[in-house]
């Protein structure tokens, strides 16, 4: 049964220095509060995984939490580049950042293989691109029936998978709806998992398009209202577009970023819930 913890407790217990950690969310339901708590607890040497690293990954990288990023599209959606990410790759600031780069199709299949307990996945992908030359996690495989050559990618099995959902019940069953991305796979592929939720309710009401994760595959649930902001949580709040815009000048400048980090994350405390 999933345990209901406070967010700081959950991060302290589940995320260790050196872990491979996936905080997934596809535009919607991005686990930002959990990311900030990881920064606050000053985790180091993490291998961060995410298909679409955006602002919260820029922040984690800028704060020096990561030594490696596994990803398929890194940017501030609708705005531009992630400057902390670029500074880390191009100038090793504040620490060097290794990258392992895939396409979305490749990453989605790596999570699916991880969730399936398979060591690898097969896809039609990467053919003719320069990506395979840059990573040893793309190989070719031959169909044993047709002889056709396809791409193979290894499973991702993070030490910790972290997602944000709208609701959990008191037993820790989780329900999310709207765009749910690769979050189910992330939890199922991970050795440990944390789901932050907008609210804990007495009973989950079935909804069209909802994805349910039963409590017995979730390690911990933490209530974190607003925990996906500045992204949105369908049924709870909308995307804070201004935040994405406002991040650009902060992210561009090391000093501004460090001020932001000190005032907005390190010196604050997530209100206990």
């Amino acid at each position, binding site marked *: 049964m999933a345990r209901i913890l406070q967010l700081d407790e959950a991060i302290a217990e589940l995320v260790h220095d050196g872990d491979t950690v996936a905080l997934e969310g*596809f*535009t*919607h339901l991005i686990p930002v509060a959990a990311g900030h708590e990881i920064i606050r607890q000053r985790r180091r040497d993490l291998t961060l995984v995410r*298909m*679409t690293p955006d602002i919260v990954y820029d922040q984690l990288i800028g704060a020096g939490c990561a030594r490696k990023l596994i*990803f*398929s*599209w*890194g*940017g501030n*959606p*609708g705005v531009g*580049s992630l400057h902390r*990410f*670029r500074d880390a*790759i*191009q100038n090793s600031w504040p620490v060097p950042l290794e990258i392992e*780069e*895939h*396409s*979305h*199709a490749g990453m*989605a*299949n790596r*999570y*699916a293989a991880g969730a399936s307990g398979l060591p690898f996945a097969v*896809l*039609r*992908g*990467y*053919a*003719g*691109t*320069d*990506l395979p030359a*840059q990573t040893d996690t793309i190989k070719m495989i031959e169909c044993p029936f047709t002889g*056709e*050559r396809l791409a193979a990618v290894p499973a991702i099995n993070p030490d910790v998978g972290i997602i944000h959902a709208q609701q959990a019940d008191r037993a820790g069953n989780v329900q999310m709806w*709207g*765009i*749910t*991305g*690769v979050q*189910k*796979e992330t939890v199922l592929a991970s050795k440990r998992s944390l789901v932050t939720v907008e609210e804990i309710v007495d009973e989950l009401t079935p909804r069209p*398009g909802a*994805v349910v994760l039963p409590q017995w595959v979730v390690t911990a649930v933490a209530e974190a209202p607003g925990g996906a902001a500045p992204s*949105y949580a*369908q049924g709870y709040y*909308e*995307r804070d*577009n201004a935040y994405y815009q406002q991040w650009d000048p902060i992210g561009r400048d090391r000093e501004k970023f460090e001020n932001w980090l000190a005032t907005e994350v390190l010196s604050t405390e997530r209100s206990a819930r």
Partner: protein
Amino acid sequence: MSSAEFTSDEMMTVGAARSLHDGVACFVGIGLPSTAANLARRTHAPNLVLIYESGTLGAKPDRLPLSIGDGVLADTADSVIGVPEIFNYWLQPGRIDTGFLGGAQVDRFGNINTTVIGGDYANPKVRLPGAGGAPEIAASCREVLIVMRMSPRSFVEKLDFVTSVGYGTGKGDREKLGLRGRGPVKVITDLGVLEPDPETCELTLTQLSPGATVEQAREAVGWPLKVVDEPTVLQAPTETELTVLRELKATIGGAK
């Protein structure tokens, strides 16, 4: 027909919208492709099926979505599915008619770079967002439309990185690589439209935007641009097209 004033970006968006046939299924990226697809759905292609990589099949947004995962897409979709499914069950088998791609660089065979510019991969001058869905969109959609503003920095002799394959090094390469779709059938730019030469697959200027010249296009391309004998001139945006486009753009303010 109108002689209203319009920008070259508007012409480009309208040109892209017109390339979408009614009833086809279109894999839409955010930005200009999404604007064009939504414009098409509001004008000549009411049955256009919009598919976003976030997992929304048949989205019918009443405003421009601000991201490929905008809530309005889920709210209005025929079905919302997970991201592994959108790539595996829907994109990969080649059941999506049209894919839209942009990029930082394109070469004469329609190959695209969205990864790094300058330096080398490990120490690039500019680190771009990366591949996203593009390599498999380029490989698997039945046809691809590329939309990019023309400039010598973006229409280059040689890509710094091949993120997505157009025609590789020329005709026959897609087949050799096992790519299922036809590849890029049009590159829609602010100055005009390039199409692959039927013999060589080299991108060739076939249409000019109203007011644009062949000379301008040649100067905006980093390789010796081939031009068909008599490039046609694109029909200027109609009043309807412009009105709908501007209304669409105006919806962004209130969006989440």
